[in-house]
Every structure is written in structure tokens, then in C-alpha cells.
């Protein structure tokens, strides 16, 4: 049931009209400790962008090492001091760099930065609510997130080094400070930061679910919600169910590190002494970690997919193809993501029978992902595509999702995983399918909703340049890594010069490093565009993309409570684009049936196309249309 008057749940009682002279905002309450979802979204976005820059710089440091393993870099010593004695990166610090790069990217940029920004911005706006169900909890979640960010960044400056056992921090390496320097204070701070991060994520996820279920404006049924909202909904459910398991893994690890327990430890001799810890199993940690870890990658990916659906539909002027199937896929992926975690553990020494089980379940989860891809392609078919930077990144996402997803088929096969596990093949796979795809989703979202966030338009040409440079760079960096993986080159290696069969990849590593440097440099275009447009961008109209969703019916200048007067009611689904016979090529959700001629009133989920005139349709000679004709779905 929807409720547009959440007076009981907000601190300000927003069921009255919106000249908000009833309370005064100080600078602190308006911009710092704000409870307004729009400000909180920007806080998440700016923090996420900052952390992305940090993580990118960390990756450049280790790419320098990998690209030029025999050279020294004096500038590295002036920045890193003892961590780059004589201009050469310390091998232990190298592991810290890859660990922190992974941790920051996966959690701080692509979970908090992506979901935090867009769920906060779009949920109230797109479902027609004044704000989140609990603005106070929302503020708490962003501030705890900020605290966890500070602690994680602080850990970079610890004398014994930041956490260095990989973002997956398997014990005993991460449990024993004597196993590596980074497993000292750096690891402790990592754990504290992550515990806070998990708390923040849980609070946020609860808020999103509650808001979506309870605060939809009249007429906004679940099946009239834009796919972005569906994706935030399923993402939040995944988060609520899986993050606590990571928290339990973290807590048990803290116990093993600080309180002498043996959850993960047994029969260890290290640093010259026999440890008095028995009975535990390192595999327990891996199960607990990956129970979150697998849903986590879908938490990272699904919001990006939701954004892609919205951006492609709006810019191709077509309904997203197969709305119900898209929702079904989101739900299917969500459910299945809980039962495939063992595919990260095929060669851990767990009972190999489990390998059979997880292999089969992993195969199943590939199917809804494939369906989503085909639906995106079908959405582009016979569209009327307007290329904004947003849809460029959305199409780029689909490409990366295909490329990365297909290599998942190799890795999901346990027998193939024997030789590919922990090699560069895995690095290529997840950077394409999750890292870059979600980053592209985030960028698509920023370009698309920038007018909604800042009331200005970003510079389009700079956006085009940014996209093409980044898209090329991503493929140049990660595609060649597949070959290294097939050659058995392990990941997390400081250099390859010790093994003859690996040393032949030195030239390619130089190429990859140069591509990475150029790709990172290209992001400066975006940063310039992002901040510059706030000041110098053209003022945005209310609905610059001629979109159907209702966030574009709110005034450009933000007001507390989003809409002056009543919240708009919704009468149709959000994908009535290019309805034949309609005066414009879009029919916003707020348009009532009474205002439309008969044929446009029926819900638009009709299978057969009704042309206003045949000439409007380009003649079909290409594969897709032919296939439809062949399948008898379309008249030849």
C-alpha cells in the first residue's frame, strides 16, 4: 500500500505545503548533517569519486611496478619513502596496494558510491516520496560510511603498512601479525573500517527497502516502478541478508587476532614458533567471506544494470524490452546469488563433491544474466537513438558485461578453474564484468541524472571524449590479461622475472601499464566536466531527456520535500515511449488516461506493433529482424 504522508516517520512532519519557513536550516544541518536524501546522495557521490581517485592512484603505483619491474623510480621514493627504497616498490607494500585497491573499489566506490548515490537520489524521486522512510537513519548511514572511509584511508599511513593479504584477507595470513607486516595494525584498522561500513550499508539497505515498500505515491504499483527502483530493491535485500555474514567473519577474525581464539587457525608454525592454536579451519573463513562475496558482486552490478535499463530506454525512445522478464531476472539473479559462492573455492581443498554442486548452480545463474543482455539488445532494435554520454556508457556496460560474463563460463567450470584459478584470467574476468561494467553504470547514471542533482547540464562533447577514451582503455588493459591467465601467470605477483615461462609477458605488461596510465588520465576530463559544469554548465530544463519517470516533474531547484504542493500521482508505467498516435514520443507516468485518446489508454504491454504508417519504419534486412521473421514472430 502506498502512503504519501509519512508524517510519523520524519523528524519534520512533511505533510504540509512546502514553503519551509517552519524550520530554519543552518549551514551544518543543510549541508553537513543533512537528512535530505538529495544531499546525502551527493555526499555518497563525492566520497565515492574521491575514493575512486585514491584507488586508481594505488593501481597506477603497482602498474608501474608490473610494467617496469627492473627500473627504479625516484619519484616513487619521494612519495612513498621507505615503501619504495631506492625507487623500487617494496614487495610487501605491493601486496598492500593491490589489497587496498580492491577493497576501496569494491566496497567504497562500487557499493557505497554507486548504490548510495543513486538509491538515495532516485528512490524518493522516482516512487513519489518526500524523502526516505527514515531520513535520520539515512544521515547516520552516510556519516558512519564517512567514518569508515576515514579509518580505511588512515590505514594507508600505518608504519607497518596497510592490510596486505588481498581484499579477500584469508587467514591465517590475515590473522597473524607475524605472517606479514600488513597483518598488524593495518589489518586491524581494515577490520574496524569494514565493520562500520557494514553497519552503514545495513542501515541504508533497510531504509531503501522500507521506503520502496511503503512510500510509493498513489498509482505507483510495484509493476509501474522503473527498473532502477527494482534493482535497488533487490540489491538492498541481498545486502541485508549477506553483509551480516561478512560481519560475522570479520568478528571471528578479530577474535582470532586479539583474543587467542582458533576459529580459523590450526597446526601452525610461524616466525620460529609453534602456535598454541588448534581446531580451527581457514576454510570456514572462506565460506563465510564468499557467502557475502558472491552476492556482493551482484550488489555491485545490479544497480548498474538498473541504471542501464533506464538510460537506454529513455535515450532509445523505446520501452525496455521485456519489463516483466527484466524484473524476473533481477529476482532470479538475487535468489541464485546466495547459492553459488563455492565457485570461488573450487581448489581450496573443500570436499570436491561440493564442486559439482556449485558448478551446476553457477551454470543456472548464467541464464538470467544472458536474458538481460538479449533484452538490452532488443531494446536498441528499431530504436530512435539519441547519443548522450549516458547511453554511450550504458552501451559500453552491455559490451563489458558480455565480455566479462562469457569468461565466467570458463571459471564456473571447476575442471577449467583448476588451471585458471587465481591467475590473470580471473583478474580480467572480474575487472570486465564487475569493475568496469559497474563503473560505466555509475558514470552513465552521473551523466544522466546530473541535471537532476545539480540543475545544470554537463558538457556533452567532453562526455563523448571521456567515453571513447575510457572504453578503449578498459579493453586495452584487461583483454590481454586473459592470455596471461591461460599461460598460468598467477595474480598478486610482485614481478614475473623469477619464472621463465612468465617472463615472456614483460612487454605486454608494459603495454597494459601504459594503457592504464592513459585511461586514468582520461578520467581527468570527467572530473573537469563534473565540477566545471556545476559552475559553468547550461542551466537545465526540468525534463532535459524527455523522460517519463516522475523525478523529472520536480522543480529544478531542490526543495525540501521534493515537490511543492501535492506529490504527483501515477497512472501508467514508465516506458510509454514512441506510442503510435501519441502527440509526443513519450507519455509521462503522471498523464491521466482521461487526457488520452482511446487507443493510448490501454496498458502498453501489447505484443504486436501498431504502426501509424509503414514508411516510418526502416526496412529490415538485418540479423535480428530476419531472426524474428524466421521464428515466425514477425511477418516477413
Amino acid at each position: 500500500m502506498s502512503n504519501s504522508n509519512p508524517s510519523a516517520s520524519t523528524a519534520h512532519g512533511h505533510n504540509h505545503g512546502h514553503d519551509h519557513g517552519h524550520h530554519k536550516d543552518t549551514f551544518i544541518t543543510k549541508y553537513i548533517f543533512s537528512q535530505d536524501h538529495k544531499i546525502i546522495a551527493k555526499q555518497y557521490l563525492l566520497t565515492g569519486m574521491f575514493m575512486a581517485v585514491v584507488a586508481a592512484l594505488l593501481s597506477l603505483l603497482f602498474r608501474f611496478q608490473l610494467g617496469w619491474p627492473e627500473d627504479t623510480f625516484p619519484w616513487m621514493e619521494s612519495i612513498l619513502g621507505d615503501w619504495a627504497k631506492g625507487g623500487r616498490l617494496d614487495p610487501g607494500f605491493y601486496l598492500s596496494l593491490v589489497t587496498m585497491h580492491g577493497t576501496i573499489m569494491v566496497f567504497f566506490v562500487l557499493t557505497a558510491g554507486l548504490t548510495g548515490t543513486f538509491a538515495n537520489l532516485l528512490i524518493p524521486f522516482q516512487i513519489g516520496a518526500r524523502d526516505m522512510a527514515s531520513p535520520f537513519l539515512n544521515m547516520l548511514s552516510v556519516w558512519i560510511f564517512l567514518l569508515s572511509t576515514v579509518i580505511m584511508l588512515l590505514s594507508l599511513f600505518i608504519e607497518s603498512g596497510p592490510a596486505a593479504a588481498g581484499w579477500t584477507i584469508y587467514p591465517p595470513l590475515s590473522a597473524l601479525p607475524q605472517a606479514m607486516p600488513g597483518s598488524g595494525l593495518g589489518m586491524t584498522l581494515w577490520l574496524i573500517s569494514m565493520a562500520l561500513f557494514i553497519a552503514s550499508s545495513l542501515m541504508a539497505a533497510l531504509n531503501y527497502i522500507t521506503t520502496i515498500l511503503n512510500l510509493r505515491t498513489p498509482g505507483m504499483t510495484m509493476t509501474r516502478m522503473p527498473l532502477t527502483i527494482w534493482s535497488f530493491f533487490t540489491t538492498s535485500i541481498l545486502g541485508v541478508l549477506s553483509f551480516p555474514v561478512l560481519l560475522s567473519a570479520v568478528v571471528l577474525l578479530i577474535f582470532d587476532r586479539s583474543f587467542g581464539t582458533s576459529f580459523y587457525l590450526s597446526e601452525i608454525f610461524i616466525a620460529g614458533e609453534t602456535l598454541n592454536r588448534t581446531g580451527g579451519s581457514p576454510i570456514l573463513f572462506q565460506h563465510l567471506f564468499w557467502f557475502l562475496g558472491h552476492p556482493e558482486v551482484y550488489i555491485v552490478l545490479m544497480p548498474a544494470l538498473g541504471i542501464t535499463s533506464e538510460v537506454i530506454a529513455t535515450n532509445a525512445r523505446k520501452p525496455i524490452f521485456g519489463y516483466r522478464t527484466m524484473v524476473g531476472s533481477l529476482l532470479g539473479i538475487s535468489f541464485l546469488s546466495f547459492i553459488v559462492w563455492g565457485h570461488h573455492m573450487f581448489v581450496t581443498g573443500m570436499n570436491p563433491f561440493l564442486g559439482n554442486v556449485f558448478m551446476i548452480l553457477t551454470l543456472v545463474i548464467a541464464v538470467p544474466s544472458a536474458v538481460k543482455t538479449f533484452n538490452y539488445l532488443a531494446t536498441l532494435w528499431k530504436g530512435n537513438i539519441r547519443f548522450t554520454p549516458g547511453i554511450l556508457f550504458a552501451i559500453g556496460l552491455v559490451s563489458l558485461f558480455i565480455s566479462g560474463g562469457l569468461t565466467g563460463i570458463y571459471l564456473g567450470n571447476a575442471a577449467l578453474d583448476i588451471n585458471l584459478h587465481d591467475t590473470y584470467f580471473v583478474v580480467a574476468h572480474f575487472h570486465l564484468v564487475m569493475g568496469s561494467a559497474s563503473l560505466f553504470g555509475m558514470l552513465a547514471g552521473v551523466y544522466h541524472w546530473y541535471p537532476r542533482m545539480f540543475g545544470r547540464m554537463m558538457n556533452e562533447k567532453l562526455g563523448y571524449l571521456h567515453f571513447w577514451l575510457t572504453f578503449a582503455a578498459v579493453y586495452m588493459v584487461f583483454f590481454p590479461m586473459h592470455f596471461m591467465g591461460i599461460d598460468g601467470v598467477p595474480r598478486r605477483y610482485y614481478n614475473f622475472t623469477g619464472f621463465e615461462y612468465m617472463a615472456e609477458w614483460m612487454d605486454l605488461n608494459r603495454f597494459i601499464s601504459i594503457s592504464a596510465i592513459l585511461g586514468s588520465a582520461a578520467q581527468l576530463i570527467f572530473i573537469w566536466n563534473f565540477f566545471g559544469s556545476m559552475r559553468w554548465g547550461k542551466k537545465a530544463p526540468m525534463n532535459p531527456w524527455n523522460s517519463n519517470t516522475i523525478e523529472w516533474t520536480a522543480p529544478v531547484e531542490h526543495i525540501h520535500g521534493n515537490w511543492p504542493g501535492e506529490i504527483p500521482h501515477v497512472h501508467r508505467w514508465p516506458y510509454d515511449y514512441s506510442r503510435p498516435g501519441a502527440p509526443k514520443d513519450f507519455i509521462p507516468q503522471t498523464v491521466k488516461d482521461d487526457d488520452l485518446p482511446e487507443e493510448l489508454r490501454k496498458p502498453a504491454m501489447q505484443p504486436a506493433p501498431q504502426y501509424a504508417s509503414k514508411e516510418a519504419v526502416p526496412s529490415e534486412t538485418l540479423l535480428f529482424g530476419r531472426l524474428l521473421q524466421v521464428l515466425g514472430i514477425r511477418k516477413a
Partner: protein
Amino acid sequence: MKPNRYFTLVFRSFFLVMVSLSAGIFPQALSAQPSGQELFANNCASCHKIDQPMAGPALGGIDKRRDGAWLLKWIRNSAAVIASGDQYAVDLFNQYNKTAMPAYDWSDEEIKSVLAYIKEEEIALANKPKAADGGDGTASLAGGGGPTRGESALMILALIVFGALLLFAGRLLSAQYRLRGIRLFNWNSINAGLFVVFLVVGMALVGLQFARLMRHTLPVAASEHGVVIDQMLVITFWITFVVFVITHYILFVYPWIYRRRGAESKALHYAHNDRLEFAWTIVPAIVLTVLILYGTKVWREITQSEPGKDALEIELFAYQFGWQARLPGSDGMLGRHDYRLIGATNSMGIDPESKEGKDDLLVPEVYLPVGEPVVLRLRARDVIHSAYLPHFRVQMNVVPGMPTQFVFTPTITTEEMREKINNYNFNYVLACNKICGVAHFNMQMKFVVVTRPEYDQWLARQRTYFKRPETQTASILLP
């Protein structure tokens, strides 16, 4: 001479000639005693380089820093030297993050040969012509005297100025055109067209990578299950590659065909089609099912079959940062071990009271007889490592407190593989493939596959884990 004596003489001479020749061609396969270089490569290289510190200090010039007697004590039992309060030792230990150096129970000759090798390498490095680099030591991308810092800064500045000028000129120009109502560029078509260009260039580059890089990937699998895995890889590749090409064709060509062409172009309002959805759900499902059923079959065969009674057992013991290998000896059984027995003189924690352990062999490199099943028994001392033998398509994590194993049958000898890939320096190698600490990248051990007779010869020369001074001297002689 009687005919059979004659033949015997010929065969014996022939045999002797061949043995000595082989010793020349394959010095490593039939070497009598591990040389200083081999000892260094197998034991020291994971943590030490000659000219730069790594997990442990740089060893160049070690003979000037410490005298021979100290070095003998240190290498044999560094923990004891530290415990004795030797200030140099304690400082060194703290400086290198308290990373313990394992104890090496080597003879005087062996230690001397390692030190001699270090000296050789130190001299060789000092005499190497200085690597090309810019006058102030900056790395050069071009590989031969790159730009100095000043030059780099100037180039970047020039680029920025040039870029700014371009931008300024661009805005001037476009303002002019806009004033006159002329649209210079159709950005929509440009972006749409760029997708097609990206498709063509991209696919060409993909093809180029396959053409140039596949030759650097692993050679034919050297194990029975490995060839099955490789077949499955190829099949999976072709299926996924076809999907990759077709979907990318559609994804990058549609933007061009269906770009907005002007005010009159319209999209087709086509919201769903259940039959189509069903089709493209069921087809991937069937293809994937076939692939995975095949995969489960192969996986089951590899991991869930019991090694036969005659399988050769080899224990691989992983520690920070190296491997030790133990063979069961003539009784065919590995001795009992207990982690509480691990110490400076008993690195693998084998129980000296265990009678099965008395004849266990400690080998510096692992030899395998071709065509015979092997079961690797895996044990770790401190953190999770992973036994990765990519040429055999073998990988299994090595977990402290949880023994693991991997069964396989090598099918190609080292000699044969060297022929196949035309590389006479090739050796099979064991690498660590699970992040395990600062020297994770340098934990290796050589594996050699030989014929049965060669294996027996090698086996006879190996020494037991527990040194038996009455039957074995430090140096190892050909029988």
C-alpha cells in the same frame, strides 16, 4: 674376439659415451651434486637477490660484511644465532620485519659453493653495462635513454597548452557556425559511427592478440587429465567466441542503424515478446547444461577418484617462502609428522621415532617417472599456499591444519617437452598461487619428468630426511 664379447664391448662403450654425452646435454638432469647455483635458486632466491633487498637483505658483498664462521652458523640455524643475543643478528631480524630464515642443514662444501656463486653473480652484475636510462635515473619508456624530468614536464606543459588552444579554437569556430545556423558536426551520427569503427578495430585487435599471444600460452598439457581439460577449454572457447562476436556485432551495429536521423525518425514501440524470451532463455540453458555436465564429469574424474595402490606418493610441504619435498623411501610409506616437532633442525616436523620415517627422502627437486600416477600430498606450515603446476594442469591449495592432495599422471618427459617447444632451458616448475606473504612471487621448486630407469638412478642418489652420518657423506656420488 668372440662375437658376443665384441658386441658387449661395443654396447658398453656406446653406453658410456652416451651417458657422458647426456651429462653434457642435460647437466641439470644428471648432475651429481647440486651446484652452488642450484642450491641458491632452490633455497635462497625466494627471499634474496644479489643487488636489492627483498624479503631478506641483498647478498652482494656478504663476504665483506660477515666472516665465514658466522655465516656457517647463521645459515645452519639463524634462529639460534638470534637467540644467542648476537647484536648484528637481532638488528637484522628486526629490520626485516622479523621474517624467520629457515635452517639449512648443509655441509661446509655446500655452503661454500653457495657463497662462491653469490660472489660470481656479484661480479657479473658489477660488470654488466649500465642499463640504458635517462641521466638522472628516470625510467625510460622507449628503452634507450628516455626523457629527463625537465623534458617530461615541458612535454606535458606543451600538451596542455596545445589542448587548451585546440579547445579555444573549437569554441570560437562552433560559436561562429552556430551564429550562422550551420551545424558543423552531426554528433549523433559521429557517435553512432564510432561504434561501428570500434567494432571493426576492436575485432581486428582481438584477432591480432590471438595471433600474437596464443603462442606464448602453455604448451600441450603434460598430464592425462590435462589434455581433457584443454579439450574442454577449446570447446568452451568456440562456443563463447561465437556468442561474443554475434552479440557484439548486434550491439555495435544497431546504434548506427537505429540512430536518430532527424525530427521525423521514430522508434518502434515494441514492449515484449514472450516467445522470444523463452527462446533465448532455453537455448543458453541447454548449451550451458551440456558444457557443465561435461565439466562435472571431468571434475569428478580428476578429484574424486582414489589413487591406486601403486601411485607414487610425494609430500609437498609449503612454508613462507619455499617448498620442501619428501618421498616415502623403500618402505613406501611416509613417516608420521606433527607440527609440534617443527624446529630449526626438523623443518618438516617428521617424528624421528616413527619407523616409516627413517627412510623418508628429502629431495631438492621433484623427479617423476613418466606415465605413472602420482599423488601429491600437500601440507602447509604457516599460512595458506597453493601448489600450482600449470604445465600439468594441477592446482590445489595447501592449508595449515588440513591436508589436501592432487592425483595426476605425467605424460611428457622434460626432454620431450624441450623438443616440442624448442626450448632447451625449459623446466617444469611448481609455483605458489595463493597470496602468502611478501615473497609469494618467488616460491618455486623444479619438477623433472624422466623415464623410469632415469628415475631409479636419481632416486638412488637422494639422501634421507634424517641425516645418517654413518652411511652418507655430505657429497653425493654416482653409484
